């Protein structure tokens, strides 16, 4: 239980994170910052997740790295801090399905077009999905997912996407492996392409890859400049400019 250094670091990180949230409430200017430099988030390996256990965290790091890899096209999910984004989302209201209708009965065998009908919150989908995937990997490759080589991990993710691994047989009920994968992929894309205020898209790398302008939101003069590449980089909600 005693994990003092870790807690200290977490507090330091939380302080840094809070610094990047400029005003805690509307109408408050308490958080005026006097310097242009946005506080630098710590490197990913120094981040201590709030929601994920360390085993789960290794899974998330190694899975998102494959879903959006760093390559010739540009930085990847790890550069963008996508795992931080997912950790924060799952620790928050989204992870708890705070606003979802979660009353039963749950018809887990409903046809796909009836939409999400599982009893799991997004947080539970990850908790169960990672446990099942690691069990699947141990059964077939004798190692958890994160310890596998890249080719095997790629193979496992492809299988999850197709829904091949039978989580039920691994002791995880009511969670198709393809559903777990769909959450993972969607949230990874979100973490790569949403505003950095949510923890991912660090330095707006996802937006720069697309040529998306972020929270710039001002184009009157450009509406009729047809087929011209837009010359300005993105702006984030917090005013980071790229």
């Amino acid at each position, binding site marked *: 239980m005693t994990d003092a250094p870790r807690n200290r670091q977490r507090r330091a990180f939380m302080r840094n994170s809070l610094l990047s949230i400029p005003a805690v409430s509307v109408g408050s200017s308490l958080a005026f910052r006097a310097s242009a430099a946005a506080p630098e988030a710590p490197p990913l390996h120094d981040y201590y997740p709030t929601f994920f256990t360390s085993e789960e965290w290794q899974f998330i790091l190694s899975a998102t790295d494959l879903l959006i890899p760093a390559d010739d096209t540009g930085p990847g999910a790890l550069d963008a801090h996508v795992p931080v984004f997912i950790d924060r989302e799952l620790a928050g209201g989204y992870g708890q399905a705070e606003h979802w209708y979660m009353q039963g009965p749950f018809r887990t065998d409903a046809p796909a077009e009836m939409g999400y009908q599982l009893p799991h919150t997004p947080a539970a989908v990850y908790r169960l999905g990672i446990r099942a995937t690691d069990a699947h990997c141990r059964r077939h490759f004798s190692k958890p997912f994160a310890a596998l080589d890249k080719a095997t991990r790629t193979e496992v*993710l492809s299988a999850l996407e197709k829904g091949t691994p039978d989580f039920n047989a691994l002791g995880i009920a009511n969670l198709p492996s393809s559903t777990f994968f769909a959450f993972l992929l969607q949230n990874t894309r979100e973490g790569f*392409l949403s505003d950095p205020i949510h923890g991912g898209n660090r330095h707006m790398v996802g937006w720069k890859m697309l040529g998306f302008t972020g929270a710039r939101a001002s184009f009157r003069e450009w509406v009729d400049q047809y087929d011209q590449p837009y010359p300005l980089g993105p702006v984030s909600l917090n005013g980071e400019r790229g």
Partner: protein
Amino acid sequence: MNDKDNSAMKTLPSVDAVIIGLGWTGSIMGMELTDAGLNVVALERGGDRTKEDFLYPKPADELKYGVRLEMMQRPKQSTVTIRRNADEEALPQRHWTTFHPGDGVGGAGSHWTGVLYRATPTELSLKSFADRTFEPGFLPEDMTIQDYGVTYEELEPHYDFFEKVAGLSGQAGNVQGEIIDGGNPFEGPRQNPFPLPPLPRTLTDTLFTEATKKLGWHPYPYPSANVSGAWTNPYGMQLGPCNFCGFCSNYGCLNYSKASPQTCVLDALKQRETFSYRTHCEVTRIVKSDDGETVKGVVYRDGEGQETFQPAGMVILASFPLSNVRILLLSEIGKPYDPVANTGVVGRNFSYQITGSIDMYFKDHQFNPFISAGGSGQVIDDFSPDTFDTASHGFIGGSYIYTTQGPGGAIGAIRTPPGSASWGSEWKKNASEHYGHHMMLGTTGTNMSYRDVYLDLDPTYTDPHGDPLLRMTYDWKDNDMRMTQFMAERMREIVAELKPDYHTESFKQVGDHFDPSHYQSTHLTGGAIMGTDPKTSVLNRYLQHWDAHNLFVMGASAFPQNMQHNPTGTVAALTYWSAKHIRERYLKAPGPLMEKA
């Protein structure tokens, strides 16, 4: 009030009128009824929303508003169950996919797209048109379309006024019968041109215009409530020019450019001492009077769970169509519809919207899709219900075909070639290379009403307080699918003109079934429809409830079937129409405004 224990219920002093829901129709009714000298209280289920919530850059957050749908009703508080037919078990929308009902002050009027249309004269009198136009027996036996009971001529002044309230921007096509080049020649005659000129044209607009003109059709700019210039409306409220910020549908406007209750009504309404509103107050019942002819107020639950009876001289039900129908059913006002016996009215003639789209990839065009406004776009109305011989194609109905530049966000803008990888380096390369090179074509069409498509209360699922959820029984019908396939053919002609590098299609076909796992439209209509016969409508032609003369029900729940055009203009015009008759006739002599035939 059912058999609930209401011993803890608090009773407040009476007011002249209580309004349930403070979106467009509630705000308009607030203005009209305070103008008439009434003390008015509005009860809003969601939270307050003011301009401060929409200050730049707050709304420019795709995750919060576009993906997590911050501005929408919380399914946890209330959702709907859906089934395709009476043999299926209806299941709840656990989080919104197929439509996005709004929540909070401003309602859907705060996060709508801003496409502001009128109905055509034909669509308001569709049954009469059909009877004139088609051979007997052409319409399917189970199709239950009706006339609205109000004509275009009667609504025209109210459309005109609301268009001034909203600063409608665009090009009129028919002013007092004169057809104007560049406008929509198929629209009903309007007494005045648009308040403001059209928004500037995007690249997609220009490509669409050129292609459809070559095909001999009549392109015109979307009638837009994202305004093209500074505008002061009849209430003294002000709008500023839209800057194509890219955060429109699902978002509050960060630039005072999208007409909404906040930008067009509320500050004026809040100045009135005879108006007040309460947020986080969810109306659960409208309470009937003992006289059997009126209602006497509403019961609501406030943010702290306190149940309260608010007595009122009149009740204006002004929430989202689905909520309107559910409150009527829970309150046992009006006879619930029974599709088997074909009796009753509440829940009858529910309809939706038929949509389809084509996505085109142009390697050599750079669209800059973040330059996007919800109400910007180009449209043709050449294939409306009364502009061509639909019978020869086997259907009644019509659709407009349009393009709009966008989407404004990043997460929602990812396009990759069909069959390509959805992750990894291949996906990344495709996503990067395709971004900004796509143009969409869309179709939005009529949806007829049918005997076995309806709303009722779910027998299984309840809200957190134990009240049944609303159940939607809905499926696509052959008539409507033949129509959308016809539109797909026309859209392919546009594709052939534009010659993209490739295109993909998304259309429904005869035999397909409703798929609520994907977004379809938030244009849900009917269930508490207006008409001239109490046996087939909940409301008379003044939106007055047939069974309770001091209860008026606003909104698209009054539509007997859905029109091709977006509903907000007609919803607002009907509200002003109803208000006019409340002010000029009802308040002077309270009672039914129409005799039951």
